[in-house]
């Protein structure tokens, strides 16, 4: 069974990584692969989104499959499928574990986390993505690990290329071109907070050296959710009379389910890894359907359950009671991707998985830190100085798992305003310095350009009259895509910049009648 399980884990991990790599534009406006499918299968995101937003994307009904599978087979998702579980598994196996090492008894923690998340989502706060394993893994890989990986591979090949060793460059370049086709990103991605997000991820992996599958055992709320379902599963483990309590099964148990203690067996903790069955010298362990449940009841402690529920509830006002809520509008720089729901609704759905940022072709979508409040941490914001919203691209809406960013048809997309450009006359070359520059107008993508020129006769220092094309922004036509800001040749503070005023998704945040 062990090998079968490993094969399954390997296949799902590779599938996950493949889809992750495919979350990148190839030039067409469709990706061609169901890149967010792991998120679609995640029942925890499904439930919390229903609770917080009272709605959910159609694809999410796939997650019912996981629920059904768990009810039939138990928590096999954790043991056989979950890509983060597999990475935890791999990291944990890097260390030699002492036989009979006592494990912590913290398994309840993940249930408290789950209760906290469910309670807070009931009160419209969507925090699950921060700690949901699939969302966390996609975000960590997208915003940190993959950029890091790209950077290091690229610098190796760039170094060889620039040193120009005869003979070597030819070989290295052909390897590099294969890598570029297969696993490297089209361009080096950069993200705000990539170190921070990466450190969290490495900490989670590192915990596996403290105890095997530390995350899965003690922290994972999805594991907790599936664990609860697993208690009612048809497939159950039983131990026959032949057991002589040698305890070897406990030393290989991935889930810390106390397989050696008959009366204390925690079926909700079992990852169905089959290790105990494989290792049992007496062949006393077996799994089978419709067996009598032998496990003890889960005892979470009434008080602690109440405390986690209450803290989930209180987290809502705590995170929201900021001056931001007074104005209703946050930071004017909080430019959400096109198709984003109104900010309140957006935050109820966005799970901060990072799919939109991964797929954004200009790298302009970046994770927020506090711009959208603590509640919105790691949600997407367009930083136009880094990258703009490509006029005919609709990819972010296609990969958003929860519909926080709506999927738009191209003809709808080009009409969506995500903000508005403003000119800083004190910096703009034709205004402030009587120097020609038309870059913002040139790159403006709207069919009738939102940036137009007023031909103004100005005088240079010597009193000589010259005609200057001074750019103006048409408030109706500008969609706030930000390409003018990205490309503005005025360095430092750009002379044209975007704020979210006028964004289509908001009724209040409007400049014009």
């Amino acid at each position, binding site marked *: 069974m062990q090998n079968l399980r490993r094969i399954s884990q390997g296949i799902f991990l590779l599938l996950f990584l493949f889809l992750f790599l495919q979350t990148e534009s190839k030039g067409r406006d469709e990706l061609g692969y169901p890149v967010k499918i792991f998120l679609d299968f995640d029942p925890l995101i499904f439930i919390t989104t229903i609770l917080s937003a009272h709605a959910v994307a159609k694809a999410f009904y796939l997650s019912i499959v996981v629920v059904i599978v768990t009810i039939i087979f138990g928590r096999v998702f954790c043991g056989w499928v979950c890509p983060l579980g597999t990475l935890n598994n791999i990291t944990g196996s890097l260390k030699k574990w002492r036989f009979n090492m006592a494990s912590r008894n913290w398994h309840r923690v993940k249930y408290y986390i789950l209760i906290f998340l469910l309670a807070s989502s009931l009160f419209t706060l969507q925090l699950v993505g921060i700690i949901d394993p699939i969302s966390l893994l996609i975000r960590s890989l997208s915003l940190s690990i993959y950029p890091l990986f790209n950077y290091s591979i690229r610098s190796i090949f760039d170094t060889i290329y620039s040193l120009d060793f005869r003979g070597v460059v030819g070989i290295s370049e052909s390897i590099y071109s294969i890598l570029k086709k297969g696993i490297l990103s089209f361009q080096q991605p950069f993200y705000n907070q990539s170190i921070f997000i990466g450190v969290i991820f490495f900490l989670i992996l590192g915990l596996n050296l403290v105890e095997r599958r530390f995350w899965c055992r003690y922290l994972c709320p999805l594991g907790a959710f599936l664990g609860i379902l697993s208690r009612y599963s048809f497939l159950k483990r039983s131990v026959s009379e032949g057991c002589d309590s040698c305890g070897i099964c406990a030393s290989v148990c991935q889930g810390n389910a106390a397989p050696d203690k008959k009366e204390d067996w925690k079926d909700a903790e079992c990852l169905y890894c089959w290790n105990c069955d494989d290792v049992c010298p007496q062949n006393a362990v077996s799994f089978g359907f419709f067996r009598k449940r032998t496990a003890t009841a889960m005892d979470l402690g009434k008080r602690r359950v109440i405390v986690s529920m209450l803290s989930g509830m209180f987290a809502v006002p705590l995170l929201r009671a900021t001056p931001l809520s007074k104005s209703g509008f946050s930071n004017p720089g909080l430019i959400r991707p096109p198709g984003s729901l109104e900010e309140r609704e957006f935050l109820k759905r966005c799970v901060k998985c990072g799919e939109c940022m991964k797929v954004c072709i200009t790298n302009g979508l970046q994770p927020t830190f506090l711009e959208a409040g603590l509640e919105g941490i790691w949600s997407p914001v367009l930083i136009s100085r880094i990258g703009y919203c*490509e006029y005919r691209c609709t990819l972010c809406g296609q990969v958003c798992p929860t519909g926080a960013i709506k999927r738009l048809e191209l003809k709808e997309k080009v009409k969506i305003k995500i903000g508005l450009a403003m000119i800083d006359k004190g910096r703009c070359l034709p205004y402030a310095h009587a120097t020609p520059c038309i870059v913002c*107008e040139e790159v403006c*993508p709207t069919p009738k350009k939102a940036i137009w020129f007023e031909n103004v006769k100005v005088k240079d220092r010597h009193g000589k009259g010259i005609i200057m094309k001074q750019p103006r922004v048409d408030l109706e036509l500008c969609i706030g895509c930000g390409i003018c800001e990205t490309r503005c*040749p005025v360095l430092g503070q750009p002379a044209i910049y975007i704020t979210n005023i006028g964004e289509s998704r908001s009724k209040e945040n409007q400049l014009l009648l």
Partner: protein
Amino acid sequence: MDRREFLKLAAISGIGFSTAGSFDKLIKSVEASEKIDLVVAHGASPSKITDAAIDAIGGMKRFVSRGDIVIVKPNMAFDRLPEQAANTNPEVVATVVKLCYEAGAKKVKVFDRTVNDPRRCYVQSGIADAARASGAEVNHIDERKFKDIRINGQAIKTWPLYTEIFEADKIINIPIAKHHGLAKLTMAMKNWMGIMGGTRRTIHQKLDESLVDLALVIKPTLTVLDAVRILTANGPQGGDIDDVKRLDTVIVGIDQVAVDSFGATLFGMKGSDLGYVKVADKLGLGTMDISKLKIKRISI
């Protein structure tokens, strides 16, 4: 006469005998075409008029020799579809690529440093697929291949330019004729912005001079101006089909200043209306006065 020379002579005369007729024709066509400065071909099929125009100016063999590495530089800077006339017509590009290979080119490379996302520009313009189908090598720009080139022009002293241009044997420029807010029109000379590295947006401060400076160092073998569809407003990327005018025309010439000057007439302007054409003419880079040119018009 040593052995090598003998073989060479034998080979040459061999070719002469075996292909005497076609050789004659070639010489004739070269003689005839040398007098023609521009060919303006008109017709419904972009590939046929491209074919005919190049044939009329002497055939691709006049420009591309066996074993040449040829750069074909279209304008595919924008994330737009062919019918929006922001990028060079893909059929025109594919035809030029095909003709290069027929003339014996070893390799034809097609690339552009795009304004919008390169992946989208290459695909949405239809050029990458069309050029690849004709056998061209279509790669994205490799940032490492930009090297500072001394230009010593009026506006640009040095600039990082794409080295593949200088390593190629032949360069064929295939711009599209369209509107531009500052340059008024962009055609052949402005298309060389696509091989500029660095922050090329700053050259708009002295655009006309900068474009001419580029023309000082980039010497195209041939220029094929795509006017199958021209963009008459909201250039250089347009987006509105109403701004597009169908002319079904291709203009071929060796002198890029002449090509641009003629191109202006498609928009009801004169070459002298364009700053960069005027500056280039003054520096003697080409001929602005199209009345001095021998223009052959063909219709298919």
